[in-house]
């Protein structure tokens, strides 16, 4: 309108041009995912100001995306080059576009936008109507029609369709000619709207249909009383619309609006619109008017499309950014997983090492060659490695393993050698001497042995571990070592008696000072291992090992060394109950037979609950043979408690009871239980408690959402039907801010439709009610696998005899670790991840290579122990270069195969390089001869599957 003369007078031409522009613009938008060419900011601003459309940046935010994470990418960062700064660069007259756009944005009423799509659709069959609906009311009154319409034939499509519809007998029950044939009746408006409108007129808006009728000058006939079609029928009439007068249809024209422009004549407009088909009597003036109107309309359409496209674009970008976020999260998760894996790998390594050492020691001492009971190793290594700041976790994780070791030792029936005196370095060579030394100090406190023998083996183990650590006693200690030291010192202080260094002094239980030690010994089993055993000479020199065994002797000299902290871990989780909240134990001589399970209290984060022993327990694998146990304030037991700030008491003893299950979580899962039914809640809580979970309870959906807001949980068990807020809604709410935490619905309504609803609300799984203990546990295992890795790791090699390396992620972690180590060790070797991976898979796939994993595992671990700064083989006289070579070879697969299958035959000289490294390291640490090492290692790996099951069985016996 502003520039009527800009355009040629031919409407076709104009149309064409317009289309071109439109296409161009669209293409521009599509190709660049970016704000359209004209000033994006002002554009957006104008929209938000005028409220025509949802502001671009808000539309997605409100409708699809959680608000907090959202940022409009195109506005914030990208916005760039493709935006054409000035209209001069645009391929089409921008001023028009922007003009009309402004106009549009200013005058269009809110909510127009939602119409736009459907109006496009409508336009197919009735452009006019569609356009009309797009038109803001301010611009023209509803009854003011634009006069432009192209492709309208002599008889308008609409009228033809109308006629056709009435001729169609299948519609007769809904719409038909009136009795006289001079009108038609819509008998059932609803039916008409639902079925006929969509079929005939491609929309389902009755009002729109009526409006259209009005445009063609149809009139509604008022219902008379005698209306045969009922009061809800609609009768329409047009003088030229008769059932039998087809020819008259041509006379039915669209009404001409009441002169929207002062100039345009109706007929002219109509003619212009109709094009060639209808004779055009119109004046050029009208023609121009029509064209302008049409152009306006197209312009508006175009703008609308642009807006629409922009919305799509912004949506798209939001999706992109969302995806990026997800990816980042995934990456973080991956990182976490890898850390975990590394963690566990190290753990495994440590275990392997100790295992080897201990097995060898055991062999030597007991001369009993058979099944080596020692499978798992301590995590002391890990602690030493300092890789894991959270000592609590360590302690927890190692609990089971240490316990296992001790029990195995007991089972193996190894006898304790009473000969003390050997310095750790020599102990290997001397047989079990060294072990006995340490046994004096630590081993006997293993509460697990009823016959005293196991305790000795325990001592050996400890000794071995100590020896193992010795070589590594590097100046730079990770924090945990320091802690250990501090703890040792504290222990010393607490144990004047032990300071005497004489093993002959059993520790009286009630005495607090010693009791701490005793306590520790008992609970931890093999507690604290002084790093350097030799100093024990005085104590160990005492031939009376029996006495020594039960006493808590701590050689003062040992205390000056940084010690290896071995946490003995119970197999049981702490149960929450009332007693012993302080983690104190009182010694009851009568309860010597009791099965005492030391457990880190930290496991559940619960206060220690149970009194430690139950004398009548048939299962007691451990007999307290010495008057040891006693109140240890949790803190003292924890050593300075330094490592575990958050965890109050660290250990506690538990009775083994049949209902106690041992899931073996690395960390007690935190579970939020949401249920309004107190009975179900009690039951579920009980189950969860048995499974070693930490439980929080919410009684309805609202409380659940609040809790989720406040705390982090590993799992949510969600009832569905609850007062206030049901589980599905609560889940939806939670999912707005927490996308990850598994939410499991507990429900008795498990029909498919409902299940679908649960899942779509964001729930991860369904646990049908009533569930059994096993059902719940399966669910926990399924969704809390990441908290169970330790168990998995120990299990896999045991049962299958295959290292847990088959998993690709393990391989990856291994490789990662290996490379880290390598670089730390200043080795120039580059590790080929492929080979390493291959290693993992081969070894796991071949039975012959059962033992292969162990070198593999210990490799990174050993390095880790040294913080990567020390060449663990230095003790063997290997240079750093050699060391790195070994590393390199170690990582390449072939050696492992050889190692795995030929351990027996292996001698120091014959060792493959990888083996050499492994053996060398171990030897360096333990002072073991190579041959012995080989043997020990083999046993450790070969017999993994025996001991444990048997042991386990005990725990499952019923009282």
């Amino acid at each position, binding site marked *: 309108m502003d520039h009527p003369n800009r355009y040629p007078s031919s409407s076709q031409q104009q149309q064409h041009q317009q289309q071109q522009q439109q296409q161009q613009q669209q293409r521009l938008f599509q190709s660049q995912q970016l704000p359209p060419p004209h000033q994006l900011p002002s554009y957006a601003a104008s929209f938000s100001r005028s409220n025509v459309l949802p502001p671009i940046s808000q539309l997605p935010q409100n409708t699809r995306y959680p608000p907090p994470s959202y940022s409009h990418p195109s506005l914030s960062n990208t916005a760039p080059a493709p935006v054409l700064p000035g209209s001069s660069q645009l391929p089409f007259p921008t001023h028009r576009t922007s003009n009309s756009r402004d106009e549009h944005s200013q005058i269009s009423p809110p909510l127009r936008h939602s119409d736009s799509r459907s109006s496009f659709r409508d336009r197919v069959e009735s452009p006019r109507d569609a356009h009309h609906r797009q038109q803001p009311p301010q611009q023209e009154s509803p009854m003011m029609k634009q006069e432009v319409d192209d492709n309208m034939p002599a008889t308008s499509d609409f009228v033809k369709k109308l006629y056709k519809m009435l001729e169609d007998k299948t519609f007769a029950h809904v719409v038909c000619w009136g009795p006289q044939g001079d009108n038609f009746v819509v008998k059932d408006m609803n039916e008409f709207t639902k079925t006929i409108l969509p079929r005939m007129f491609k929309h389902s808006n009755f009002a729109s249909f009526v409006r259209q009728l009005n445009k063609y000058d149809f009139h509604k006939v008022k219902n008379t009383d005698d209306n045969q079609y009922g009061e809800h029928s609609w009768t329409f009439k047009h003088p030229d619309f008769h059932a039998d007068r087809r020819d008259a249809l041509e006379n039915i024209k669209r009404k001409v609006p009441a002169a929207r422009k002062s100039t345009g004549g109706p007929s002219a407009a109509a003619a212009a619109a109709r094009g060639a088909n209808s004779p055009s009597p119109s004046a050029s003036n009208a023609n121009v008017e029509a064209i302008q109107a049409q152009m306006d309309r197209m312009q508006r359409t175009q703008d609308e499309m642009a807006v629409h496209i922009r919305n799509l674009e912004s949506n798209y970008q939001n999706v992109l950014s969302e995806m990026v976020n997800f990816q980042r999260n995934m990456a973080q998760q991956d990182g976490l997983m890898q850390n975990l894996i590394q963690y566990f790998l190290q753990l495994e390594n440590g275990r392997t090492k100790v295992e080897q050492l201990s097995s060898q020691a055991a062999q030597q001492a007991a001369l009993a060659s058979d099944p080596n009971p020692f499978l798992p190793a301590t995590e002391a290594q890990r602690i030493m490695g300092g890789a894991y700041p959270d000592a609590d976790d360590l302690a927890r994780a190692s609990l089971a393993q240490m316990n296992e070791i001790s029990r195995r030792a007991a089972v193996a029936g190894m006898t304790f050698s009473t000969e003390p005196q050997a310095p750790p370095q020599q102990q290997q060579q001397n047989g079990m001497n060294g072990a006995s030394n340490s046994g004096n100090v630590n081993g006997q406190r293993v509460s697990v042995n009823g016959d005293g023998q196991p305790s000795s083996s325990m001592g050996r183990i400890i000794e071995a571990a100590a020896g193992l650590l010795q070589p590594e006693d590097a100046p730079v200690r990770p924090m945990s070592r320091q802690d250990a030291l501090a703890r040792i010192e504290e222990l010393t202080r607490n144990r004047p008696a032990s300071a005497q260094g004489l093993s002959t002094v059993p520790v009286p239980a009630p005495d607090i000072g010693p009791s701490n030690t005793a306590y520790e010994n008992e609970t931890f089993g093999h507690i604290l291992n002084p790093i350097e055993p030799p100093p024990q000479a005085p104590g160990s020199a005492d031939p009376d090992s029996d006495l020594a065994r039960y006493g808590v002797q701590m050689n003062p000299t040992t205390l000056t060394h940084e010690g290896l902290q071995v946490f003995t871990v119970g197999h049981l989780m702490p149960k929450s109950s009332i007693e012993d909240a302080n983690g104190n134990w009182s010694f009851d001589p009568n309860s010597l037979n009791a099965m005492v399970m030391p457990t880190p209290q930290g496991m559940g984060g619960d206060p220690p609950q149970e009194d430690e022993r139950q004398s009548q327990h048939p299962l007691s694998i451990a007999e307290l043979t010495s008057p040891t146990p006693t109140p240890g304030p949790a803190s003292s037991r924890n050593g300075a408690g330094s490592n575990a700030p958050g965890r109050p008491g660290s250990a506690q003893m538990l009775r083994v*009871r*049949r*209902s106690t299950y041992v899931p073996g979580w690395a960390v007690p899962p935190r579970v939020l239980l949401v249920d*309004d*039914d*107190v*009975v*179900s809640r*009690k*039951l579920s809580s*009980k*189950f969860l408690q*048995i499974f070693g979970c930490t439980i929080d309870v919410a009684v309805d959906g609202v409380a659940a959402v609040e809790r989720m807001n406040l705390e982090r949980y590993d799992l949510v068990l969600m*009832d569905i*039907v609850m007062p206030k807020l049901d589980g599905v809604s609560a889940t939806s709410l939670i999912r707005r801010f927490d996308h990850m935490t598994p939410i499991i619905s507990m429900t*008795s*309504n498990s029909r498919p439709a409902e299940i679908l609803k649960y899942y779509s609300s964001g729930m991860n799984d369904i646990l049908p*009610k*009533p569930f*059994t*203990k096993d059902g719940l546990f399966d669910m926990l295992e399924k969704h809390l696998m990441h908290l169970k890795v330790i168990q998995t790791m120990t299990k896999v090699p045991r049962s299958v005899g295959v290292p847990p390396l088959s998993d690709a992620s393990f391989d990856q972690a291994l490789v990662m670790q290996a490379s880290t180590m390598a670089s730390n060790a200043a080795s120039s070797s580059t590790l080929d991840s492929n080979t390493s991976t291959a290693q993992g898979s081969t070894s796991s796939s071949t039975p012959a290579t059962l033992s292969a994993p162990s070198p593999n595992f210990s490799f990174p671990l050993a390095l880790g122990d040294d913080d990567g700064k020390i060449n663990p083989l230095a003790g063997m006289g290997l240079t750093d270069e050699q060391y790195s070579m070994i590393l390199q070879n170690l990582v390449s697969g072939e050696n492992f195969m050889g190692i795995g299958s030929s351990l027996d035959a292996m001698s120091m000289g014959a060792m493959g390089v990888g083996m050499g490294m492994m053996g060398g390291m171990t030897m360096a640490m333990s002072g073991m001869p190579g041959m012995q090492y080989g043997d020990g290692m083999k046993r450790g790996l070969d017999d993994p599957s025996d001991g444990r099951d048997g042991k386990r069985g005990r725990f499952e016996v019923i009282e």
Partner: protein
Amino acid sequence: MFSQSKKKSPQRVPDMIDEETFNQIVELDEDDTHDFSYGMVKAYFTQARSTFDEMEQAFAAKNLLKLSDLGHFLKGSSAALGITRVQKSCERMQHYGKKWDEEAGSALTEEGAMKKIEPLLGKVKGEYGDAEKWLKGWYVDRGVKDED
């Protein structure tokens, strides 16, 4: 109506309790006491009684949805303890409350639903009474004293 069903129900005691479920719970007890299971059972008693009261109120108010919810609620706790018959009746009430006859697989009118619920309410109370008796007896047999 109520009294009638009360009289009837005791004869069908065998399927009143799902022993397996109940034993599972009892197995969770520790120390040869039945603190845990008895605590649960008592909680159930309390909850069931109050639920019945609410059912009566909802019934008086012809609040079918409420009845359905209550039925669902009590069904859950009954199922947890293995109190099978109460559980089944509650499930029926849950369906009736939604104007649905599960057995017939057909929809009910509001009146029809109310009509069905009325006897059911009596029946479920009777069933509950039996269960309570049985459970209390069980604990008495084992020397558990009811403190309240």
